[in-house]
């Protein structure tokens, strides 16, 4: 391609920006996930902005995207946290629904006798929802850390149990009613940015700090990277796992509150497609599904990328089914790209990758 033409120049400039961004990110040890998600985000956003600027760049659409992303995003952060320890949490959506159902039931029960008290106790009721999440997380922690069940099986079982309890509780119907506090949070904006989105960012920052800046975060990383080494370094895996799954439970509970803020209804089968979507987001964001590595920034960006693709598809009139295809293709493409790049680059002595090699199948013959 001739270098003088604008596209060539543009590509070169793009390349340069890309490279400098990547080296910058590489220097602070977060290049995996974050870099490629930034690029993907810019690409997706640019593509849809060009294809249908009138709809896609409409402030209402942008605001909708910001309102829609938190519930999935918070669950994805929780999933990344579970994956960081080498586990997985399939019960997250069930926990979120259980929390939403608890809040809705409590509110309706109190409101039936005294609506004013119910409203004034809104914050307290919401806290109970989070508490339910923590409790559910503690059940997961007990099964995984104390009993010693593999996380994927333990949370598969508790997913069925929590979901079953929710079905029994609601009788399979949709409950209506939530404290006005939550709904007003769902509708409020700060300088054009929805409050829910800010809430999402706050959660992300808190968990990010928890992972990277606290002893607990260090321990979770070590536990995920190499459980045996962690044990010999004096890390008590039981307390690390309890801490992790209670935290993911709390995040699930918060996600339940976000469900209610967007829409004052709760049901047992809301967001069943989220279970797998959340794993997709966590992995796209650079989380190593075998443990030891996760970046919350990457997960947040991955959430936004998928949200942009979803809204963009709607803007250019593609169906939800085509969005499902795009999700799968993006996931495989990113994973394959990652794998090819890892294989080309001569690897220094594997550090946190020992588990990955064991699990990531056959070396090329």
């Amino acid at each position, binding site marked *: 391609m001739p270098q003088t033409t604008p596209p060539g120049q543009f590509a070169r400039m793009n390349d340069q920006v890309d490279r400098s961004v990547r080296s910058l990110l590489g220097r602070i040890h977060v290049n995996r996930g974050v870099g490629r998600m930034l690029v993907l985000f810019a690409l997706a956003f640019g593509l849809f902005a060009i294809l249908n600027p009138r709809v896609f760049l409409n402030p209402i659409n942008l605001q909708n995207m910001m309102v829609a992303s938190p519930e999935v995003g918070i669950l994805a952060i929780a999933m990344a946290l579970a994956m960081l320890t080498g586990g997985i949490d*399939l019960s997250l959506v069930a926990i979120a629904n259980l929390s939403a159902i608890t809040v809705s039931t409590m509110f309706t029960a109190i409101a039936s006798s005294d609506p004013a008290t119910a409203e004034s106790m809104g914050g307290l009721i919401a806290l109970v929802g989070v508490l339910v999440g923590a409790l559910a997380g503690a059940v997961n922690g007990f*099964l995984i850390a104390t*009993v*010693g*069940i*593999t996380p*994927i*099986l*333990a949370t*598969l*079982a*508790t*997913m*069925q*149990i*929590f*979901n*079953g*309890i929710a*079905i*029994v509780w609601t*009788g*399979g119907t949709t409950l209506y009613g939530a404290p006005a506090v939550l709904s007003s949070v769902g509708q409020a904006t700060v300088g054009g940015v929805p409050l829910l989105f800010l809430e999402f960012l706050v959660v992300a920052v808190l968990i990010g700090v928890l992972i990277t800046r606290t002893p607990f975060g260090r321990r979770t990383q070590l536990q995920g990277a190499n459980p045996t080494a962690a044990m010999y370094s004096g890390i008590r895996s039981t307390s690390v796992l309890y801490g992790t799954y209670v935290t993911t439970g709390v995040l699930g509970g918060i996600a339940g509150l976000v469900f209610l803020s967007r829409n004052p209804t709760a049901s047992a089968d809301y967001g*069943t497609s989220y279970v*797998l979507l959340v*794993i*997709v987001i966590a*992995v796209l964001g650079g989380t190593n*599904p*075998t443990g030891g590595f996760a970046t919350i920034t990457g997960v947040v960006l991955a959430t936004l990328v998928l949200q942009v693709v979803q809204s963009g598809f709607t803007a250019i009139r593609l*169906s939800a*089914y*085509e*969005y*499902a*295809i*795009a*999700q*799968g*293709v993006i*996931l*495989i493409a990113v*994973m*394959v790209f990652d*794998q*090819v790049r890892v294989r080309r680059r001569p690897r220094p002595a594997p550090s946190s990758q020992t588990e990955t090699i*064991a*699990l*990531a*199948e*056959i*070396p090329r*013959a």
Partner: protein
Amino acid sequence: MSATDTRIRLPRIGRMSNELVLASIILVLVIVMCAVNPAFFSVHTLFSILRSALVPMVFALAVLFVIISGGIDVSFAAIGIFAAYTTVSLAQGGGLDFGLIGILAFAIVIGGALGFVNGIVIARFRLPTLIVTLATQGIFKGVLLAYIGSKYIAELPDGISWLSTANLISIESTRAYLPMLIVPVVLLVIGAAFVLRRTMFGRGIYAMGGDLEGARRAGFPVVRLQVMLYVLVGAVAAIGGLIHVVLGRSANPQDLVGTELDVIAAVVLGGASIFGGRGTVTGTVLGVLLVQIINNSLILMGVPTAWQRAAVGFLLVIGVGIQAVMARRASRRTFVLDTVKE
């Protein structure tokens, strides 16, 4: 000395009798059910449990193979409905009624092709199976609904529609019917057991699940085995999808997807190790039957159907929990023995 003996023997008994434990749980459950509700003990109940177990059984076989090889597949349900729906809509709308054999072959080819996609991506790029099948599940379902069809087909082509009402055994007096489709399912079960036990392919799958690198060094063509495995799983899933469509007498493209985890739960209950290398067809059959019996007996006991999900969850916790505690005790014991030796 005798103390050491029991120490070593205990966990082994626990492991060996896994199928026996399941069988006795089923037996106890059936006896309790009969005591609580005499209506349970009837041919009608037996046949309806078997009927409801047909589709999960076929899927469970597919899942068993993947789990033994050390992977997890969540795309089989999408493959099953993709193959079945595409075949039915072609046979119906395209006017190409190939007859039973033709339709079956067509569905199997589609399922095998989709499985091939899984196998290639997993084996060629060495990606985690859960993540890949998660992605392909979305792709398969999306392609099916976006490009092939999203309409409910209420009438099956003549080639297979007669199977919906064909019964192997029908007892008119008690209105108990055993569908003809149990024959292919039983054949598949026997076939799966044969492949796993008696063929190089089957042993290779166990070897891969035990230790992939070890299997490779032992001379198994791991990449080829893995691709073959996923093609096979796709083909079996297609048969499962077709049976589902025939039993339901309609093809709904929204069906099946979402039931993956239930099937995986049944297989794990059947004693297959999620880490690979362990699992038997007998255990899987018992696991699937146990889940179906529980679902069925809860209804007869007057427990709301809403409890079914939770019941299966509790069962899974108990089953896997016992396994985990035993494994932990076993490892602790060997640890103690080692230090004693030194």
